[in-house]
């Protein structure tokens, strides 16, 4: 794997290889010294053109846990504010000879463009409403740990699919892993032609009981002004996942940040069925695995692991 630009580029086998790698890093995370020297002497640049808490912090920590040097650039306050183009910014950062560039950008295809300009491996950390492959991988990882396999599992993605890169990447990833997908939301928030991605489309939660997993999406408040839905109250009345609608055997996921009381009621967020905190924890190890796959998997020697001062190889995960 040269770059991680989209989930679409990955086969089931490749997805599983990354998740298996993530399992081995989870083991590292349980040690006192949670750091391995794998990427020592190499540089990872994170370049974020949009606000982010989870994705940016977990990529940064992932790079540090792998002993990479980290340069973290946020568009706000950088030369981007002075009108520098993406191409020129990438050329500037490339002067540091980074091994990887992790890019979050408000427009589709930005990571793909950067991959064409830079020598570094490029990780798409979200491009517009297009894709968010590392999110999809961590969600599959989280579900796989809980369910063993996604094969034949019914997953409902509920909410503002139109504006969600997470929905798109997760649809592709969940399908690749054998799940059956239903997408549900108000008609104006479901893109026309989405069913051609291989999912069912519903505009009511009536049949939500069929789902093994309910994946709720964030509803941005500004959508009200554009008449996608008449009001928050009306949206919540029809599409909020609450304890009445969520059955006791169903799992609940959400990419964060949550609008409490809009797409999810407070009680389901904190319920035992909620995987939301686990998703965040998975984010770190999965992003370590992504950097490892891109930067170290081709290395001839097995990656050494620093544990209690002794270098030991990472065992192949079961």
């Amino acid at each position, binding site marked *: 794997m040269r770059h991680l630009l989209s989930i679409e580029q990955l086969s089931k086998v490749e997805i599983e290889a990354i998740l298996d790698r993530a399992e081995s890093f989870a083991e590292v995370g349980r040690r006192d010294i949670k750091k391995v020297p794998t990427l020592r002497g190499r540089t990872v640049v994170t370049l974020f053109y949009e606000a982010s808490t989870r994705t940016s912090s977990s990529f940064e920590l992932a790079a540090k846990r792998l002993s990479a040097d980290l340069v973290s650039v946020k568009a706000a306050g950088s030369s981007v504010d002075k009108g520098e*183009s*993406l191409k020129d910014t990438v050329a500037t950062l490339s002067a540091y000879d980074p091994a990887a560039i992790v890019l979050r950008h408000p*427009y589709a295809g930005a990571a793909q463009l950067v991959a064409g300009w830079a020598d570094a491996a490029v990780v798409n950390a979200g491009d517009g*409403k297009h894709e968010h492959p590392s999110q999809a991988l961590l969600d599959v990882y989280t579900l796989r740990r809980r369910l063993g396999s996604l094969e034949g599992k019914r997953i409902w993605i509920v909410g503002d699919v139109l504006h969600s890169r997470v929905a798109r990447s997760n649809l592709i990833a969940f399908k690749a892993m054998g799940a059956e997908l239903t997408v549900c939301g108000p008609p104006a928030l479901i893109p*026309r032609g989405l069913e051609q991605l291989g999912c069912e489309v519903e505009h009511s939660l009536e049949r939500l009981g069929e789902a093994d997993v309910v994946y709720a999406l964030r509803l941005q408040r500004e959508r009200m002004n554009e008449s996608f839905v008449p009001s928050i109250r009306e949206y919540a009345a029809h599409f909020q996942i609450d304890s009445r609608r969520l059955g006791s055997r169903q799992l609940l996921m959400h990419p964060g940040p949550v609008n409490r009381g809009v797409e999810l009621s407070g009680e389901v967020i904190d319920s035992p069925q909620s995987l939301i905190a686990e998703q965040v924890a998975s984010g770190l190890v999965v992003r370590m695995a992504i950097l490892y796959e891109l930067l170290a998997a081709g290395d001839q020697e097995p990656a050494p692991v620093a544990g209690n001062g002794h270098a030991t190889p990472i065992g192949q995960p079961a």
Partner: protein
Amino acid sequence: MSAPRLQMRAGESASLVLREATVLDPVAGIDAKHDIVVRNGVIAELVAPGEANADGIEEIDAGALHAFPAFFDPHVHLRTPGQEHKEDIETGARAAAAGGYCGVLAMANTEPPVSTPADVEALLAEAGTAAAVKVGFLATVTRAMEGEELTEMASLRDAGAAGFSDDGLPIRSARVLRRALQYQRLCGGTIALHEEDPELSGAGVMHEGPVSAALGLEGIPSVSESTMIARDAALARYEGGRIHVQHLSAAESVEAVRAAKAAGVQISCEASPHHLCLTDEEVRSLDPQRFKMNPPLRSETDRQALIEGLRDGTIECIATDHAPHAAEEKEVPFEQAAMGVTGLETAFAALHTELVLPGTIELGPLIERLAGGAEPFGVERPSLALGSEANIALCDLSARWTVGEDGYESRSSNSWCAGKELTGRVLMTVAGGQVAYRLRSFSMGVAA
């Protein structure tokens, strides 16, 4: 009422013999091998192969070549004034000549827009010194393209404006368009319309459908175009106005024009080579250089409807909507990139390769439509009939070439055909009675 003025650089009138050319001019009813003799810029003789007396003028062996009436494009962007880093009259006209065109009409959405008689006069004067082919200029319908007040349409016509268009933007207000159609009775001048309802297009960047759903790009629905065509056809009918619908892209739009024509509306329309050859599937590449334009590439159903419209005459002409942009305006993510692709240099070759060779459309109707953009604006159609001003596209239908390998005549390189291998090439163009273009290798080959 004033006639449109078109200007080109004055030069030496062409005198030459095209020996044994396959001559095809469906409108003039010519479809046979002939010697064509051009003397002093006029088609002086059209005689049986080998019969012409060269009398010492240049002879060209055209035995393996086709001679068509040169093409006419009613919709190009020459970016002058204000955006000469993308194109100017000289480079744009050169691109037209290289594509076999003898004339083009330039749109008015420049910086500032062409809104005053002085603007039109200055541009015509510039074309008179710089353009290798005839260039006419449309003026905006509304002042500064703001969609509010009409320009001085009658004075603009007197200055030589070839018509009116706010192309790049729709005329949002039905009231304003109605006033323009009323005023048209006084001054003439076809009103060319960029049909799009901004309320429906929103911030869309591609066709709305399964591909936009998959890419997470905001879509421009087909009905954004067709509803405006229906509105404006109704207005034109009510006021007895003359309108021309630009760059049709959707099946619903073809239906709307067909219905308007059946109802007797004075309406004509155009389709662009890229809409006739490509679909929104191309956008999966997220390459704005080749595949981002407005109106957007649409579905295969839409493409087929355009082809059908071209065949049955609902669409009377092909217009490239040649829209040059500088590299830095295209080397950005798809949503941020400028809309538009260049097309003058490749229109014939692309349509020949994509539509004629597979048998989708015959050569005759294609040639007819490539020059069909003149009449809707009151410009005389290029013709190979005896006694006509010489406007000739000399083409090698078997020549294979890769677009862009030798660069472009245009100042910009955002060709939707970039890197494509095409079959069929313009070797020489005679425009307004002058030799406007020779492919370098061709002129080298025959110079001896």
